[in-house]
Protein backbone atom coordinates (compact mmCIF):
# COMPACT_ATOMS: atom_id res chain seq x y z
CA UNK A 1 0.00 0.00 0.00
CA UNK A 2 1.26 3.48 -0.89
CA UNK A 3 2.24 5.64 2.08
CA UNK A 4 -0.25 8.34 1.15
CA UNK A 5 -3.22 6.01 0.92
CA UNK A 6 -5.90 6.10 3.60
CA UNK A 7 -7.13 2.67 4.62
CA UNK A 8 -10.83 2.86 5.58
CA UNK A 9 -13.14 0.05 6.65
CA UNK A 10 -16.78 0.67 5.77
CA UNK A 11 -19.32 -1.29 7.83
CA UNK A 12 -22.74 -1.20 6.18
CA UNK A 13 -25.16 -4.01 5.41
CA UNK A 14 -26.49 -2.29 2.29
CA UNK A 15 -24.38 -2.98 -0.84
CA UNK A 16 -25.65 0.25 -2.42
CA UNK A 17 -23.89 2.27 0.29
CA UNK A 18 -20.62 0.49 -0.44
CA UNK A 19 -21.18 1.26 -4.13
CA UNK A 20 -21.86 4.92 -3.31
CA UNK A 21 -18.71 5.14 -1.17
CA UNK A 22 -16.67 3.52 -3.94
CA UNK A 23 -18.06 6.13 -6.36
CA UNK A 24 -17.20 8.93 -3.91
CA UNK A 25 -13.65 7.81 -3.28
CA UNK A 26 -12.63 6.60 -6.75
CA UNK A 27 -9.40 8.29 -7.82
CA UNK A 28 -8.72 9.62 -4.32
CA UNK A 29 -6.27 8.49 -1.67
CA UNK A 30 -9.01 6.60 0.19
CA UNK A 31 -8.93 2.81 -0.11
CA UNK A 32 -12.16 1.19 1.05
CA UNK A 33 -12.57 -2.20 2.62
CA UNK A 34 -16.35 -2.76 2.74
CA UNK A 35 -17.83 -5.29 5.17
CA UNK A 36 -21.44 -5.98 6.05
CA UNK A 37 -21.39 -6.91 9.74
CA UNK A 38 -19.44 -6.91 13.00
CA UNK A 39 -17.96 -10.35 12.48
CA UNK A 40 -16.31 -9.34 9.22
CA UNK A 41 -15.22 -6.01 10.70
CA UNK A 42 -13.22 -7.77 13.41
CA UNK A 43 -11.75 -10.13 10.80
CA UNK A 44 -10.59 -7.17 8.70
CA UNK A 45 -9.15 -5.47 11.79
CA UNK A 46 -7.16 -8.63 12.48
CA UNK A 47 -5.81 -8.54 8.93
CA UNK A 48 -4.75 -4.90 9.22
CA UNK A 49 -5.66 -2.04 11.53
CA UNK A 50 -7.37 0.65 9.40
CA UNK A 51 -6.75 4.37 9.62
CA UNK A 52 -10.46 5.05 10.10
CA UNK A 53 -13.81 3.24 10.34
CA UNK A 54 -17.10 4.33 8.74
CA UNK A 55 -19.89 2.62 10.62
CA UNK A 56 -23.61 2.50 9.78
CA UNK A 57 -25.88 2.90 12.81
CA UNK A 58 -28.33 0.26 11.59
CA UNK A 59 -26.73 -3.05 10.65
CA UNK A 60 -29.72 -5.31 10.18
CA UNK A 61 -30.27 -6.88 13.59
CA UNK A 62 -27.10 -5.30 14.99
CA UNK A 63 -26.67 -1.86 16.49
CA UNK A 64 -23.88 0.34 15.20
CA UNK A 65 -23.95 2.07 18.59
CA UNK A 66 -23.17 -1.18 20.42
CA UNK A 67 -20.44 -2.02 17.93
CA UNK A 68 -18.85 1.39 18.47
CA UNK A 69 -18.86 0.81 22.24
CA UNK A 70 -17.12 -2.54 21.63
CA UNK A 71 -14.51 -0.87 19.42
CA UNK A 72 -13.81 1.74 22.08
CA UNK A 73 -13.43 -0.99 24.70
CA UNK A 74 -10.81 -2.77 22.61
CA UNK A 75 -7.30 -1.35 23.25
CA UNK A 76 -6.34 -1.89 19.62
CA UNK A 77 -9.22 0.19 18.24
CA UNK A 78 -9.95 2.47 21.20
CA UNK A 79 -8.43 5.57 19.61
CA UNK A 80 -9.28 4.94 15.95
CA UNK A 81 -11.39 7.64 14.29
CA UNK A 82 -14.91 6.19 13.97
CA UNK A 83 -17.47 8.07 11.90
CA UNK A 84 -21.18 7.28 11.99
CA UNK A 85 -23.18 6.94 8.78
CA UNK A 86 -26.89 7.35 9.31
CA UNK A 87 -30.14 8.35 7.72
CA UNK A 88 -31.39 9.68 11.05
CA UNK A 89 -31.34 13.44 11.52
CA UNK A 90 -32.88 13.41 15.00
CA UNK A 91 -30.56 15.21 17.47
CA UNK A 92 -31.31 12.53 20.08
CA UNK A 93 -29.89 9.87 17.78
CA UNK A 94 -26.83 12.03 17.13
CA UNK A 95 -26.40 12.50 20.89
CA UNK A 96 -26.56 8.72 21.38
CA UNK A 97 -23.92 8.25 18.69
CA UNK A 98 -21.48 10.69 20.25
CA UNK A 99 -22.15 9.18 23.69
CA UNK A 100 -21.31 5.74 22.27
CA UNK A 101 -17.92 7.03 21.17
CA UNK A 102 -18.32 8.14 17.58
CA UNK A 103 -16.02 10.97 16.52
CA UNK A 104 -18.38 12.34 13.88
CA UNK A 105 -21.81 11.85 12.36
CA UNK A 106 -22.47 11.89 8.61
CA UNK A 107 -26.08 12.02 7.48
CA UNK A 108 -27.21 10.15 4.39
CA UNK A 109 -27.59 11.38 1.72
CA UNK A 110 -24.16 12.98 1.77
CA UNK A 111 -21.92 14.68 -0.77
CA UNK A 112 -18.66 13.04 -1.82
CA UNK A 113 -16.77 16.22 -0.95
CA UNK A 114 -18.18 16.37 2.57
CA UNK A 115 -17.25 12.76 3.19
CA UNK A 116 -13.67 13.26 2.01
CA UNK A 117 -13.24 16.51 3.94
CA UNK A 118 -14.32 14.83 7.16
CA UNK A 119 -12.16 11.74 6.64
CA UNK A 120 -9.09 13.89 6.02
CA UNK A 121 -9.85 16.19 8.96
CA UNK A 122 -10.17 13.31 11.40
CA UNK A 123 -6.97 11.73 10.17
CA UNK A 124 -5.12 15.02 10.57
CA UNK A 125 -6.37 15.26 14.14
CA UNK A 126 -5.54 11.61 14.87
CA UNK A 127 -2.01 12.09 13.60
CA UNK A 128 -1.46 15.29 15.57
CA UNK A 129 -1.96 17.70 12.70
CA UNK A 130 0.08 15.78 10.17
CA UNK A 131 -2.00 15.67 6.96
CA UNK A 132 -1.76 12.17 5.53
Amino acid at each position, binding site marked *: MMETEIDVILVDD*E*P*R*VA*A*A*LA*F*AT*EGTEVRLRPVQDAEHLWQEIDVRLPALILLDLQLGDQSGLDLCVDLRANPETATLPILA*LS*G*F*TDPKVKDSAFSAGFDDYI*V*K*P*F*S*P*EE*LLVRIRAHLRRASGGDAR
Partner: protein
Amino acid sequence: MNLEQPISALRSVVHLAPPVVGQSDGIARMAAAIAAAPEAGVAFVVDDQTHLLGVVTRKDLDTQLLALALPKLAARRVDLADQKEVWGWAHGVDATAANLMVGMAVASVDEPLSKAIERAIADGRDVVPVVDSDKRLLGYISVFEVLAAQLEPES
Protein backbone atom coordinates in the same frame (compact mmCIF):
# COMPACT_ATOMS: atom_id res chain seq x y z
CA MET B 1 -18.91 23.19 -14.18
CA ASN B 2 -18.89 21.72 -17.67
CA LEU B 3 -22.25 20.06 -18.16
CA GLU B 4 -20.92 18.00 -21.06
CA GLN B 5 -18.63 16.05 -18.74
CA PRO B 6 -19.81 12.63 -17.56
CA ILE B 7 -21.40 12.49 -14.13
CA SER B 8 -18.51 10.34 -12.94
CA ALA B 9 -16.22 13.34 -13.46
CA LEU B 10 -18.61 15.66 -11.57
CA ARG B 11 -19.16 13.57 -8.48
CA SER B 12 -19.75 16.54 -6.21
CA VAL B 13 -23.21 17.08 -7.74
CA VAL B 14 -24.45 13.67 -6.62
CA HIS B 15 -26.20 13.29 -3.26
CA LEU B 16 -25.10 9.80 -2.28
CA ALA B 17 -26.93 7.01 -0.47
CA PRO B 18 -30.38 8.55 -0.02
CA PRO B 19 -32.87 6.67 2.15
CA VAL B 20 -34.81 4.05 0.19
CA VAL B 21 -37.94 1.97 0.67
CA GLY B 22 -38.96 -1.47 -0.49
CA GLN B 23 -42.14 -2.20 -2.44
CA SER B 24 -43.94 -3.56 0.64
CA ASP B 25 -42.99 -0.68 2.92
CA GLY B 26 -45.87 1.34 4.33
CA ILE B 27 -46.73 4.97 4.63
CA ALA B 28 -44.57 5.62 7.71
CA ARG B 29 -41.40 4.37 5.99
CA MET B 30 -42.19 6.38 2.88
CA ALA B 31 -42.78 9.52 4.92
CA ALA B 32 -39.53 8.98 6.83
CA ALA B 33 -37.58 8.53 3.59
CA ILE B 34 -38.93 11.76 2.11
CA ALA B 35 -38.39 13.62 5.38
CA ALA B 36 -34.75 12.50 5.47
CA ALA B 37 -34.06 14.03 2.05
CA PRO B 38 -36.80 16.65 1.58
CA GLU B 39 -35.05 18.40 -1.29
CA ALA B 40 -35.44 15.25 -3.40
CA GLY B 41 -39.22 15.33 -2.96
CA VAL B 42 -39.48 11.60 -3.60
CA ALA B 43 -38.88 8.28 -1.85
CA PHE B 44 -36.77 5.96 -3.98
CA VAL B 45 -38.19 2.42 -4.25
CA VAL B 46 -35.64 -0.38 -4.74
CA ASP B 47 -35.66 -4.17 -4.95
CA ASP B 48 -33.62 -6.53 -2.79
CA GLN B 49 -30.55 -5.87 -4.94
CA THR B 50 -31.08 -2.09 -4.58
CA HIS B 51 -32.02 -1.70 -8.23
CA LEU B 52 -34.22 1.34 -8.66
CA LEU B 53 -37.84 0.37 -9.38
CA GLY B 54 -39.49 3.79 -9.22
CA VAL B 55 -40.33 6.60 -6.86
CA VAL B 56 -43.15 7.71 -4.58
CA THR B 57 -43.66 11.43 -4.96
CA ARG B 58 -44.28 13.72 -2.04
CA LYS B 59 -47.51 14.88 -3.68
CA ASP B 60 -48.91 11.35 -3.77
CA LEU B 61 -47.79 10.71 -0.21
CA ASP B 62 -49.35 13.99 0.93
CA THR B 63 -52.70 12.72 -0.29
CA GLN B 64 -52.26 9.59 1.81
CA LEU B 65 -51.28 11.54 4.90
CA LEU B 66 -54.17 13.94 4.42
CA ALA B 67 -56.58 11.02 4.27
CA LEU B 68 -55.25 9.74 7.58
CA ALA B 69 -54.99 13.04 9.43
CA LEU B 70 -57.89 15.05 7.96
CA PRO B 71 -60.20 12.63 6.14
CA LYS B 72 -62.98 15.17 5.54
CA LEU B 73 -60.58 17.55 3.88
CA ALA B 74 -59.11 14.68 1.92
CA ALA B 75 -62.57 13.69 0.66
CA ARG B 76 -63.20 17.22 -0.57
CA ARG B 77 -59.81 17.24 -2.24
CA VAL B 78 -60.50 13.95 -3.93
CA ASP B 79 -63.59 15.53 -5.54
CA LEU B 80 -61.20 17.74 -7.42
CA ALA B 81 -58.43 15.23 -7.93
CA ASP B 82 -57.59 13.14 -10.94
CA GLN B 83 -58.23 9.42 -11.07
CA LYS B 84 -54.73 8.54 -9.93
CA GLU B 85 -55.11 10.56 -6.75
CA VAL B 86 -58.47 8.97 -6.02
CA TRP B 87 -56.92 5.57 -6.45
CA GLY B 88 -54.03 6.50 -4.19
CA TRP B 89 -56.28 8.02 -1.54
CA ALA B 90 -58.37 4.85 -1.34
CA HIS B 91 -55.39 2.90 0.00
CA GLY B 92 -55.35 4.91 3.24
CA VAL B 93 -53.30 3.47 6.05
CA ASP B 94 -52.60 0.30 4.09
CA ALA B 95 -50.83 2.07 1.25
CA THR B 96 -47.55 0.50 0.22
CA ALA B 97 -44.77 1.83 -1.94
CA ALA B 98 -45.85 -0.60 -4.65
CA ASN B 99 -49.31 1.01 -4.67
CA LEU B 100 -48.01 4.54 -5.06
CA MET B 101 -44.84 4.00 -7.08
CA VAL B 102 -44.42 5.76 -10.43
CA GLY B 103 -41.66 5.62 -13.01
CA MET B 104 -38.85 8.13 -13.21
CA ALA B 105 -36.12 8.90 -15.71
CA VAL B 106 -32.67 7.83 -14.47
CA ALA B 107 -29.09 8.78 -15.30
CA SER B 108 -26.02 6.56 -15.46
CA VAL B 109 -22.67 7.71 -14.14
CA ASP B 110 -21.13 7.46 -17.60
CA GLU B 111 -23.41 9.89 -19.40
CA PRO B 112 -23.01 13.68 -19.66
CA LEU B 113 -24.59 15.69 -16.88
CA SER B 114 -26.43 17.77 -19.48
CA LYS B 115 -28.32 14.71 -20.71
CA ALA B 116 -29.39 13.82 -17.18
CA ILE B 117 -30.65 17.34 -16.55
CA GLU B 118 -32.50 17.45 -19.86
CA ARG B 119 -34.18 14.15 -19.04
CA ALA B 120 -35.25 15.30 -15.58
CA ILE B 121 -36.73 18.50 -16.97
CA ALA B 122 -38.55 16.59 -19.72
CA ASP B 123 -39.86 14.25 -17.02
CA GLY B 124 -41.09 17.21 -14.93
CA ARG B 125 -38.87 16.26 -11.97
CA ASP B 126 -36.70 18.28 -9.61
CA VAL B 127 -34.14 15.49 -9.28
CA VAL B 128 -32.75 12.66 -11.35
CA PRO B 129 -31.62 9.37 -9.76
CA VAL B 130 -28.12 8.18 -10.61
CA VAL B 131 -27.41 4.47 -11.03
CA ASP B 132 -24.16 2.58 -11.46
CA SER B 133 -23.28 0.10 -14.20
CA ASP B 134 -25.21 -2.59 -12.31
CA LYS B 135 -28.29 -0.33 -12.21
CA ARG B 136 -27.99 0.09 -8.43
CA LEU B 137 -29.10 3.40 -7.02
CA LEU B 138 -26.09 5.51 -6.02
CA GLY B 139 -27.82 8.81 -5.34
CA TYR B 140 -29.57 11.67 -7.05
CA ILE B 141 -28.80 15.00 -8.70
CA SER B 142 -30.79 18.16 -7.99
CA VAL B 143 -31.68 20.04 -11.17
CA PHE B 144 -31.88 23.32 -9.26
CA GLU B 145 -28.41 22.90 -7.75
CA VAL B 146 -26.83 22.18 -11.12
CA LEU B 147 -28.54 25.10 -12.83
CA ALA B 148 -27.74 27.47 -9.96
CA ALA B 149 -24.09 26.39 -10.09
CA GLN B 150 -23.94 27.69 -13.66
CA LEU B 151 -24.21 31.21 -12.22
CA GLU B 152 -21.03 30.76 -10.20
CA PRO B 153 -17.83 32.08 -11.78
CA GLU B 154 -15.31 29.44 -12.81
CA SER B 155 -12.63 29.14 -10.15
